[in-house]
């Protein structure tokens, strides 16, 4: 028997319902009781969610998904993957029959009117936290079947990637946490917006923002809102942007201002109020405390801050942002990077005296640093294109495999594959005619790859060794069936009504470009890095000290400027000239990781990661961590590394399988493994602590399990 109601009408809700109806519903009910206009609504309470996840077994499936590894070992990309798998569980698991009947009856009054379906979690909108936008909302939903499906999608958003990032703060546990869902009549308004009782940057002002039509345009940033600043003591209009805006009349502005003031008094703190006009009625959609997401250390780049979560959150770009970003990257950034590398290559370093070389070294490091920053601020965020597509694809197609969408992304010719084909050909040519001319031609083409702070073109002997090995190896077939991909693409587009098909097509374009860029972005950066390394190498030759190879850029500059300077050689510095991914990995090196104490020895037998490429393989491991191990890689070995960098993908065709410490279904290693049909497990914690070169491994790419066999078996 139910002691708590499954459904509550907005007017039945009071403060005592906070736990089962959530903050948003309780706040709206309070506003309604105060006489504000609130759209009529019903609340599906938290206990209904809890019953659903327990009766269908989703609660345990979430527990398994989230217990794959310790939370602190999960990267944001893995959280996104986990969130997508969980969302897929909700989407493909129907309600228990009695629950479906109960909801159909209780919501029958919404049968034929469009509704808004929103989350109302106990934690959001409370005075302590405002996790704005943590969970999903769906607007203009019509018909019972659609309503029921979207209730489950809002439930799934309890476990969104954003929520999972803040799992500890939100106190999320698979069997106890719950979320209420608010179903409200949709208001087809002509003007909407957000009002802030207090401007975060200037507390004496209030702000009102408005856009024509629905609020969604404002939330996803696709339309620049009109903005008014008001004196928050008397509501006097101070200024507006644009300065002659007539989108809202003075009367409308003063009504919105009054409502915002009233809400702030009612809830006892400055509020951020979402509003909308329908004809002359001012509806309140939501009121919550104003919060600002600021990094704790101003001046620090967000990807270097101790708490990187605000940076991760900023990576989920809207369709409109991605569209603009794509043009900017393809037409501006990548050509600029290539031009920059060419300009640097054209400079004659040899002609510089030591002092000028020191200056040049300093300049090149700066240039590289700036581009590395661009890489973080523009290229990495664009990777979200593939993710956004993944979610839209799953909603439209409801495939059995939540990552089926990746099959559509490979239709374009991947540069890494083209590079590998070319490499194979050159190797065959070189075997037939091992001349210096051919080798030079090859180094011209591939020399600017960089790995572990070295320019690979500088390693002629290693390349000779490599070409000889590659020429006699059997490269795997690429798994590319263009006609099947075209069919899948067409199926996806056909699933949309005609007026939305151009959106579907554009989204695929963005997703493919994003996937391609992921495959190739570091190569552009490596060209610039190569020019920094050229200057470093020349400096080392001039210093001609036995220790020169151990000096970092700062020390090289000092040595060039001051012949009497004696640098202190410490251990090798990993980070200094490498502002790449390593900054984003909190536990890249963990020197404290112990596998031996007194008489105990710890070995791993099986480690679980993510199944990122299907298939099963057995073979000897090779840890690749520097150029020596890179060029020592042999056919049939299992590639074990921290993260596959596009600069090292030339060894992948020889690998039997890939094991990567860095996690994710859409990371470079996973993409390339799928291209070659190789079993791949990513996100294997401590892979480099427990696996040694030569150890026999079984890589299960179906389940994401790596087994390390005993030496004697």
């Amino acid at each position, binding site marked *: 028997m139910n002691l708590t109601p499954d459904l509550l009408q907005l007017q039945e809700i009071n403060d005592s319902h906070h736990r089962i109806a959530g903050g948003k519903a309780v706040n709206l009910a309070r506003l309604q009781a105060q006489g504000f206009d609130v759209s009529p609504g019903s609340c599906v309470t938290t206990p209904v969610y809890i019953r659903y996840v327990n009766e269908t*077994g989703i*609660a*345990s499936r979430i*527990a*398994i998904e*989230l*217990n*794959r*590894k*310790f939370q602190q*070992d999960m990267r944001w990309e893995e959280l996104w993957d986990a969130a997508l798998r969980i969302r897929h569980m909700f989407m493909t698991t129907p309600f228990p029959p009695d629950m479906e009947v109960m909801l159909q009856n209780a919501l029958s009054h919404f049968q034929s009117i469009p509704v808004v379906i929103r989350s109302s979690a106990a934690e959001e909108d409370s005075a302590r936290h405002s996790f704005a936008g943590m969970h999903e909302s769906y607007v203009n939903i019509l018909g019972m079947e659609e309503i029921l499906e979207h209730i489950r999608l809002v439930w799934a958003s309890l476990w969104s990637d954003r929520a999972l990032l803040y799992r500890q703060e939100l106190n999320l546990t*698979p*069997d106890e946490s719950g979320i209420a869902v608010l179903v409200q009549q949709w208001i087809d308004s002509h003007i909407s917006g957000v009002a802030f009782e207090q401007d975060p940057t200037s507390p004496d002002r209030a702000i009102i923002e408005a856009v024509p039509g629905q609020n969604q345009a404002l939330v996803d940033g696709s339309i620049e809102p009109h903005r008014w600043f008001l004196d928050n003591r008397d509501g006097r209009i101070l200024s507006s942007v644009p300065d002659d805006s007539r989108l809202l009349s003075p009367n409308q502005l003063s009504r919105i201002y009054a409502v915002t003031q009233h809400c702030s008094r009612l809830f006892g703190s400055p509020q951020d109020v979402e509003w909308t006009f329908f004809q002359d009625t001012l509806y309140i959609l939501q009121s919550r405390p104003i919060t600002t997401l600021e990094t704790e250390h101003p001046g620090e780049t967000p990807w270097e801050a101790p708490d990187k979560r605000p940076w991760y959150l900023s990576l989920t770009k809207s369709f409109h942002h991605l569209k603009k970003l794509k043009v900017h990257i393809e037409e501006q950034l990548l050509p600029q990077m290539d031009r920059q590398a060419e300009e640097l290559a054209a400079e004659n370093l040899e002609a510089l005296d030591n002092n000028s070389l020191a200056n040049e070294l300093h300049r090149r490091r700066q240039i590289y640093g700036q581009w590395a920053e661009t890489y973080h601020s523009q290229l990495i965020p664009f990777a979200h294109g593939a993710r956004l597509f993944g979610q839209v694809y799953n909603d439209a197609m409801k495939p059995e495999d939540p990552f089926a969408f990746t099959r559509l992304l490979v239709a374009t010719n991947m540069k890494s594959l083209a590079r590998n084909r070319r490499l194979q050909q050159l190797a065959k040519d070189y075997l037939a005619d091992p001349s210096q001319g051919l080798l030079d031609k090859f180094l011209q083409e591939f020399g600017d790859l960089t790995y572990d702070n070295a320019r690979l073109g500088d390693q002629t002997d290693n390349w000779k060794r490599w070409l000889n090995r590659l020429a006699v190896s059997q490269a795997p077939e690429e798994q590319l069936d263009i006609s099947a991909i075209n069919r899948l693409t067409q199926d996806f587009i056909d699933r949309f009504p005609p007026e939305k098909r151009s959106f579907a097509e554009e989204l695929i374009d963005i997703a493919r470009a994003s996937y391609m860029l992921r495959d190739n972005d570091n190569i552009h950066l490596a060209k610039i890095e190569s020019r920094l390394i050229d200057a470093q190498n020349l400096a080392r030759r001039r210093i001609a000290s036995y220790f020169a190879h151990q000096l970092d850029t700062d020390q090289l500059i000092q040595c060039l400027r001051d012949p009497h300077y004696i640098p202190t050689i410490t251990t090798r510095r990993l980070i200094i000239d490498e502002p790449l991914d390593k900054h984003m990995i909190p536990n890249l090196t963990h020197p*404290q*990781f*112990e*596998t*031996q*104490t007194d*008489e*105990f*020895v*710890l*070995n*791993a*037998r*099986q*480690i*679980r990661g993510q199944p990122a490429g299907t298939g099963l393989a057995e073979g000897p491991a090779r840890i690749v961590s520097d150029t020596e191990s890179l060029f020592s890689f042999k056919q049939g070995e299992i590639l074990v590394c921290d993260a596959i960098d596009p600069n090292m993908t030339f060894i992948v065709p020889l690998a039997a399988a890939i094991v990567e410490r860095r996690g994710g279904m859409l990371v470079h290693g996973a993409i390339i493994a799928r291209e070659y049909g190789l079993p791949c497990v990513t996100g294997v*914690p*401590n892979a480099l*602590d*427990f696996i040694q070169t030569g150890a026999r491994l079984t890589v299960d790419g179906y*389940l994401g*399990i790596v087994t390390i066999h005993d030496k004697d078996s």
Partner: protein
Amino acid sequence: MHNIDDIKQSLRELLSRQYFMALATQANGQPHASLVAFAATDDLEYFYFATPRSTRKYANITQECRVSLLIDNRGNDIKDIATAMGVTVEGLAQEVTTGERDSTLPIYLEKNPAMKEFVQSPHTVFVKVKVLRYRIVTQFQNVVTLEIAGSK
């Protein structure tokens, strides 16, 4: 994944919280599993349990001293699959000698005071298992082996 010290600590916690373990013995190729009350030493090197001398498990041990133990913290809930820890021990079983009995029996009785009468019966054998290695399963399919050096 945990450090070795964290692993040892979680083993100690598991072994002090659980009262029963499955004991696997064998004779003539036939495995035999039994449920017994146990105690383990804080250094993780020994397990103790008691059994009547006439049991099949004791007969098996006298034929083949290599045994396996299973200790886990499942709560018979479907969620255990994600959260429970299972520990398999491989070790060598042997009756505790009269000389050792005074120093080791208190370890067992401190944890299982109700077994006092049972242990003191002339028919009961007090058995120790010297641990060779632990195989520890967490998070559904993560498996590590903790070897005690010199025992291989």
